[in-house]
Every structure is written in structure tokens, then in C-alpha cells.
């Protein structure tokens, strides 16, 4: 038995019942109650529901690291929502250094969610073992499902060209390079050809009126490439999804509140549960969706979770739920996308 499988077995033995069911189902490619086996119907009507987003936990290996509690706080915050969201999307970067113990710790905490969860990877989860431990815990990184009339798509957007083999880097060195936000070495991330082909096939038979939600770690627009606040093949993704009336893109990675709209696609970022990032020196199209500058003396300022309410007509009410008072008046009651 590989170390990954052994650890996963240990983890499953440790986990609570609901968490085990979720994980086993995910590993088997089953999506529990969130799967609507019927394809999204023509007409684009949604049976209104809400889902939550948690993102960027960046767990370290130390016991009782403050980020552990912050992820626990996020899970508790979602569990205490009334009514509860139908499911949770996790936006990547469970771990900081991609080690198995960090990923297992994250899976243990996330198993406490009282609703199903779907997850896509971040670069911090991936580049130590190229996703082996992550896949062992969370299943496939590319997925889609239908829920109450909405077609949800998850993509792995943190793929880069092989820079490590020519340089003779070890897995740990590769991970170290990828951990650095402003590293000039790896180049821009993307979903790459195979996932583009998968995406085109996935949506091929869906009518244009189908409500679409696409979920990635990095934003599907050119926000600030230096920090990989971008996805290099986002134009191709947007082109594939251009036939739809309305597409919502949700993403992690940027650790801040953020909104943008390009063509038929709205784009909403998730706050992290670990630390907030400053806004890069870029003029925003919708600057009113910026959060207040975080106060460094308040350890959890500028972090939190998200709640998305989808209406019958596939309008989204985005509600940021920060741990502290991080939102400007414009953001207090949420905004429509």
C-alpha cells in the first residue's frame, strides 16, 4: 500500500461518518445529493438554492497552527448558516507546502462540513507530488455536475509547463518554486489542452440557456499575471462558454473580494481563510467590490467565507461573510451578479 493510500486509510478511520461518506463518494466519482442526474433543462430556470465557497486554507504541518483554527472557523460558519447551503465548493490551496499531512489535516477539518463538498486544487496542493496525495484524498480535479437546473464545472487551472526536469529540480525544490507567488520561474498557469477538450465536450450538448457555473483556483481573466492572478487559456475557456446566455465564474487564489465581468461571464473571487492579499497595482473595472484594507493587528481581518444565492432566473446574490468587519458599505448586503 502506498503512503498515500495508507494515510488515506488512516484518515478515513479517523474521520466522522458524514465526512467518510463524502470522501468515499467523491473518490468513487459519486456526488451524493448534489447530483441532479437530469441534464440542465432548456429554458434556464433554476430551482433557487444557495451554495457556499471556502478557499485557500494554506495549512502548515505544525500542530495547532493558527490557520487550522481559521479553517475550522470557516467550516463552523458555513455549518451555522440558516438555511444551510446545499453544498460547498472549496477553491484550492488546502495545504501550504503540498505535504500529505497538510492535505490530510485539511480533509479532516473539511469532513466536518454538514453538507457535500466539491473541490479543485491550488498550486500549493499540487507540485510536491503532482497531485498524487490530493487525488487520493479528494478524487478527480476536473468535474461537472448538475444541481437544480445549474451546470457546475470544476477545472484545474494551476498547470504549468515542465520547468523542473530541464533544471533537474527535486520535488521539494519544484514545490518551493511554486509556493512563491511572485516567482518568475514557472510562468503563467492554465488548464491546458486536455481540459479544454474535456470542457468543450462537457458542454457540447447543453442548450445556450443552461445556467453555467465554472469553478477554478485562478481567475478566468487577466487580472495581474505577475502573481498568477490569471489563467493563461482563460480566453479559450470563455470562447467555449460563449454560447451560453449567462456564465458565472467563481475562483480562489487572490485572497480578496473581487468582481469583474467579461462578455457573458461574471467573475467573483473568494476570500481566503488564511491571510488577505493586497490589491495589485491594477485599475479595477468594479473598484467598489474591493474590501477594506486589512488591519494586521487583527489576525483574521480580511478573511472569511462566501455564500451564493441563485435565483430562479439564475441571478446570483454574492454575500461575503468575513470573520471580521472587512466589508465596505457597498458590500455589506451582497451584490448581484
Amino acid at each position: 500500500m502506498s503512503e498515500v493510500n495508507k494515510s488515506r486509510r488512516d484518515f478515513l478511520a479517523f474521520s466522522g461518518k458524514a465526512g467518510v461518506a463524502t470522501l468515499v463518494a467523491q473518490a468513487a466519482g459519486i456526488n451524493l445529493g448534489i447530483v441532479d442526474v437530469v441534464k440542465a433543462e432548456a429554458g434556464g430556470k433554476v430551482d433557487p438554492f444557495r451554495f457556499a465557497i471556502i478557499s485557500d486554507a494554506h495549512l502548515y504541518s505544525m500542530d495547532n497552527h493558527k490557520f487550522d483554527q481559521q479553517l475550522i472557523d470557516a467550516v463552523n460558519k458555513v455549518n451555522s448558516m440558516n438555511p444551510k447551503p446545499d453544498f460547498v465548493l472549496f477553491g484550492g490551496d488546502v495545504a501550504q507546502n503540498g505535504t500529505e499531512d497538510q492535505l490530510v489535516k485539511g480533509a479532516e477539518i473539511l469532513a466536518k462540513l454538514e453538507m457535500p463538498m466539491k473541490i479543485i486544487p491550488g498550486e500549493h496542493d499540487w507540485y510536491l507530488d503532482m497531485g498524487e496525495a490530493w487525488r487520493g484524498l479528494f478524487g478527480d480535479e476536473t468535474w461537472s455536475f448538475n444541481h437544480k437546473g445549474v451546470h457546475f464545472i470544476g477545472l484545474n487551472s494551476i498547470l504549468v509547463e515542465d520547468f523542473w526536469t530541464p533544471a533537474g529540480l527535486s520535488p521539494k525544490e519544484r514545490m518551493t518554486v511554486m509556493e512563491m507567488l511572485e516567482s518568475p520561474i514557472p510562468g503563467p498557469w492554465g488548464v491546458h489542452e486536455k481540459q479544454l477538450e474535456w470542457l468543450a465536450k462537457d458542454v457540447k450538448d447543453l442548450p445556450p440557456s443552461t445556467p453555467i457555473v465554472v469553478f477554478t483556483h485562478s481567475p478566468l481573466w487577466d487580472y495581474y499575471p505577475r502573481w498568477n492572478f490569471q489563467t493563461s487559456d482563460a480566453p479559450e475557456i470563455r470562447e467555449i462558454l460563449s454560447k451560453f446566455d449567462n456564465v458565472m465564474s467563481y475562483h480562489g487564489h487572490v485572497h480578496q473580494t473581487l468582481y469583474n465581468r467579461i462578455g457573458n461571464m461574471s467573475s467573483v473571487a473568494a476570500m481566503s481563510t488564511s491571510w488577505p492579499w493586497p490589491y495589485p497595482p491594477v485599475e479595477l473595472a468594479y473598484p467598489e467590490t474591493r474590501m477594506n484594507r486589512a488591519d494586521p493587528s487583527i489576525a483574521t481581518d480580511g478573511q472569511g467565507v462566501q455564500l451564493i444565492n441563485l435565483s430562479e432566473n439564475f441571478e446570483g446574490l454574492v454575500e461575503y461573510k468575513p470573520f471580521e468587519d472587512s466589508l465596505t458599505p457597498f458590500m455589506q448586503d451582497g451584490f448581484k451578479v
Partner: protein
Amino acid sequence: MKTRIAIRRALGIGGIAVATVVAGTVFARAPFTEAELQQQMDTLYGVIQTGYDLWHGSEPSMTSNGLACANCHPDTAASNPQTFPKYQTMYGKVVPWQEMVNWCIENPQLGERLSPESDQMTAMKAYAMYLHRGLPIEPGLASEQTAAVPVAFGTGFKREPTGLGVDTREYTPERR
């Protein structure tokens, strides 16, 4: 008589001026040569490199929980060296930038503070100042977030490390 005095004064002033120029060419240091300037800048870049490394966690004593300055401040963004000294609520007084760095080392990073006069602190300040070059000095600015100098938007990435970990070395800010 008056004319003679005026001529003498003029000659005296002129003589002083001439003497100053002559003395200047003999005793004053000539401007730095291009090679010397390059050497000075290379020395500075070396210190900035050290600052970059420290910012990204090269000194273990600066953290006990794995966090480095760069976790929250990529490219030194929002470290705002050009706004110090300024009032910091956690101190209840006006402090220099170095003290704010030490606050971050001791609190979010749970590490051991550096001497404000140490070469390590100088290196980190050199790195942060370099990435804020050209921005106006505005002591006390606290409510707004400032970012480091921008990197050309959408131009992609260098494939080789620049040493500074940044590709902003080609960026020349507008002189104010």
C-alpha cells in the same frame, strides 16, 4: 576713487571665483565613472537580493510558524516603506518601518525580532524601498493601500530568475 574701489572689489570677487574653480579641479573628487557607479549599484542589488531572500523566509529565527513576510506582502506590496515613520495603533506611537517589520516578525510570524540597525534589516529595507522606488514619500499615510511598482501588465514572465525575483528591474519610474 569710487571707480577704483569698485574695480578692486570686482577683481577680488573674480579672483576668489577663479581660485575656487582652480582649487576645485585640483582638489575635488571627480564624478564617479560609469564603472564605479555600476559597481555601487551591483553592491546595492546584492543587498536587495539578501533582502529578497530574508523576505521569503531565508532566516529561520524570523518565524516559528512557517510564515514569512512574503506570505502577506508579495513584491513587498502594502508594506509601504514610503509612508514611515507613522503612527501604528499596536504601538500607540510613531514608529519607523523597521519597527513595523519587527512587529510582523514577532506577531504573525512568531519569530525573533531583528536589530533595527542590523545588515539584515537594512537588506530588507533596501528590497522594499527598491520596489517602491518613484512613489512619493508620504509619512503617515495609513488608510490607503499602496502597492509596489507595477510590473508590465500581461507581458508574461521571465523564464530565468532575475536574482531579485522580480522582473521590474527594467522599470524606470517617472521622476518627480
